[in-house]
């Protein structure tokens, strides 16, 4: 009974200890990957800054802003969503937060009579929406932790292609929203929902104004409109890529936090169970002592014929408690 209970407790402690080892390892791995993911975010910044600057210069140089990717459509009948989630779980609320944000946005649009089209990145989003029998337009996965530009391009192209088709055609959209987790700092990540298409003209106009000082008279080859036509898709791809890199860094940060919490919980649990196990063991010993003392007393009473001798010289404690106190066997 008592010893059985104790054995069960010890076994649980052991299993928690090995779980703790795993969560601790995952925590450390995630911590080191955050740094790498952040470096990737930083390394990608020059390109997106430059491409924005070039776009500004083209706009300032007289490129017409009548490209389809810039045209607002009215009414918007169908909204596309690009949703960036992870391929793996064990990252706390990371996946569920971004998925929930997307589902809410989708339902808000539905409430206003707009249809949806999903472009999913990451296994977790796909699993969620497939299980709930949402209609999935495109799903991509297998790269969430280390996204390459090529991965971003595939996702962006799929969404752009649907947007260009328009809601008039099967699977087309009038607007595209990009939902991902922005990496603000090690401690803070936030799910954001930004409009990807049509692109905000103001962004381009701001970039045009931001051009350093008086606009230099650029020579364009071919003419600005044609360059812009090539540049806009690259810009959209770049934004999706930046979002994926941010999401990857956020995923690692979320995983690190989740695994740290798991490790701490395991530690607490081990402490608590060890206390309980010790108590059970102590209770068992006490019971046994009582049994032995009781037994010896009964024997002695029988021998002395009922006369109680309170100071027996023949029974020594080391004889009675040999199993409990003398582990070394020195008295045996």
């Amino acid at each position, binding site marked *: 009974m008592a010893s059985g209970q104790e054995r069960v407790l010890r076994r649980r402690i052991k299993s928690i200890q090995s779980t703790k080892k795993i969560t601790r390892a995952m925590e450390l791995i995630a911590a080191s990957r955050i740094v790498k993911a952040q470096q*990737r975010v930083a*390394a*990608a910044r*020059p*390109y*997106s800054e*430059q*491409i924005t*600057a*070039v776009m500004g*210069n*083209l706009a300032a*140089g007289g490129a017409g802003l009548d490209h389809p990717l810039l045209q607002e459509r009215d009414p918007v009948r169908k909204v596309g969503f690009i949703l960036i989630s992870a391929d793996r779980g064990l990252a706390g609320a990371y996946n569920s937060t971004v998925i929930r944000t997307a589902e809410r946005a989708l339902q808000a649009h539905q409430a206003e009579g707009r249809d949806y089209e999903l472009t999913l990145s990451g296994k977790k989003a796909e699993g969620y929406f497939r299980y709930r029998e949402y209609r999935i337009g495109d799903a991509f996965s297998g790269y969430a932790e280390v996204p*390459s*530009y090529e991965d*971003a*391009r595939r996702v962006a192209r799929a969404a752009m292609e649907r947007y260009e088709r328009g809601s008039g055609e099967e699977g087309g959209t009038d607007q595209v929203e990009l939902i991902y987790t922005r990496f603000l700092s090690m401690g803070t990540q936030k799910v954001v929902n930004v409009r990807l298409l049509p692109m905000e003209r103001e962004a381009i106009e701001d970039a045009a104004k931001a051009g350093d000082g008086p606009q*230099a*008279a*650029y*020579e*364009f*080859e*071919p003419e*600005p409109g*044609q*360059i812009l036509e*090539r*540049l806009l898709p*690259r810009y959209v*791809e*770049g934004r999706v*890529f930046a979002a994926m890199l941010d999401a990857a860094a956020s995923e690692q940060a979320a995983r690190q936090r989740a695994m740290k919490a798991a490790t701490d919980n395991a530690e607490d649990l081990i402490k608590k169970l060890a206390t309980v196990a010790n108590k059970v063991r102590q209770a068992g010993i006490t019971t046994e002592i009582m049994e032995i003392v009781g037994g010896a007393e009964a024997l002695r009473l029988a021998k002395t014929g009922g006369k109680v001798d309170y100071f027996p010289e023949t029974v020594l404690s080391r004889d009675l408690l040999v199993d409990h106190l003398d582990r070394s066997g020195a008295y045996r």
Partner: protein
Amino acid sequence: MTLQVELVSPERILYSGEADMVVCRTVAGGEVAFLTGHAPFLAALETGVVRVKTGSGEEVAAVHGGFVEVRDNRVIILSDVAELAKDIDVSRAERAKSEATGDDEDAIEARKRADARLDAAKRAS
């Protein structure tokens, strides 16, 4: 006076340094060379080779599309698919070239890319 050159891909800055001359291929005008004091210039690039001539030698890269901006002796080349010659795997490029045999757009594009990579690798060696 030298040119300040940056070759930027979406994933990282591939090359950054000073140069005497930069040669690249634009969509409309064929090969263009930039020297110091070039007028502000902005162009879309063709799939091809970019050459950066420095005092000590030449840096070669293959770009598959992209943009070049020249201003105040700064040359910025943006390309979503770019490779420095020293990073190009010649045997892979050759394989890609021999595999792209069709007449459709994709195959022609793939051949062009493979050619640009082989060209860049050859010039660098």
